[in-house]
């Protein structure tokens, strides 16, 4: 079993739709939960991160973490064609007060928002 599993998609939605992207993880020691957006031929760009269960909102984006179910989600409201990209979940283990922590990535979900 992979440490982080991400729905691979691809996902195609009309402009204005609500998008739900999901990951599950197996290691309860995971501490920080990130979502990155990656445009074609570019490096991943950090969208949001959180360390606690619950919701965190930033504009049209909401990150949700359920540690009891080991499940994380990213919701995009009022999706735009500019949101078309690959979305990667990433989970950090053992931040532990040191500056090094290992990120484990999902395999990414390709999202297309068509006008």
């Amino acid at each position, binding site marked *: 079993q992979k440490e982080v599993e991400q729905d691979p998609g691809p996902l195609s939605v009309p402009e204005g739709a609500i998008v739900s992207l999901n990951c599950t993880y197996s290691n309860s020691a995971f501490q920080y939960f990130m979502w990155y957006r990656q445009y074609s031929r570019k490096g991943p*760009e*950090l969208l949001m991160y959180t360390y606690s269960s619950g919701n965190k909102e930033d504009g049209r984006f909401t990150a949700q973490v359920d540690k009891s179910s080991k499940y994380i989600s990213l919701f995009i409201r009022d999706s735009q064609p500019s949101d078309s990209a690959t979305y*990667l979940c990433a989970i950090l283990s053992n931040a532990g007060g040191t500056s*090094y922590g290992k990120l484990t990535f999902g395999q990414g979900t390709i999202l297309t928002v068509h006008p």
Partner: protein
Amino acid sequence: SQTIHQWPATLVQPVGSPLSLECTVEGTSNPNLYWYRQAAGRGLQLLFYSVGIGQISSEVPQNLSASRPQDRQFILSSKKLLLSDSGFYLCALETGSSYQPQHFGDGTRLSIL
């Protein structure tokens, strides 16, 4: 603000040739630096990380090596490339005494012929 420079952006190399990819960072000091590889349609695989000059840790055994000759320079190398070394190579940095997520450069796309 922190900036990560990677070059070249694209590289085509024959099998058996050497490799040197460079990553330099600006706007910070004493960062943790990382090399990742991303295969097509896949997530990111951590290759190497460095917490300081001359300090390199390898995550997976492979045909590649890394060096950190200066605080803000991280180099990925190979003496003889294999077909399986093709991929998108990304450099990332992490800074701060409290946790801040890694930031990535724009990568080098390496094709081996």
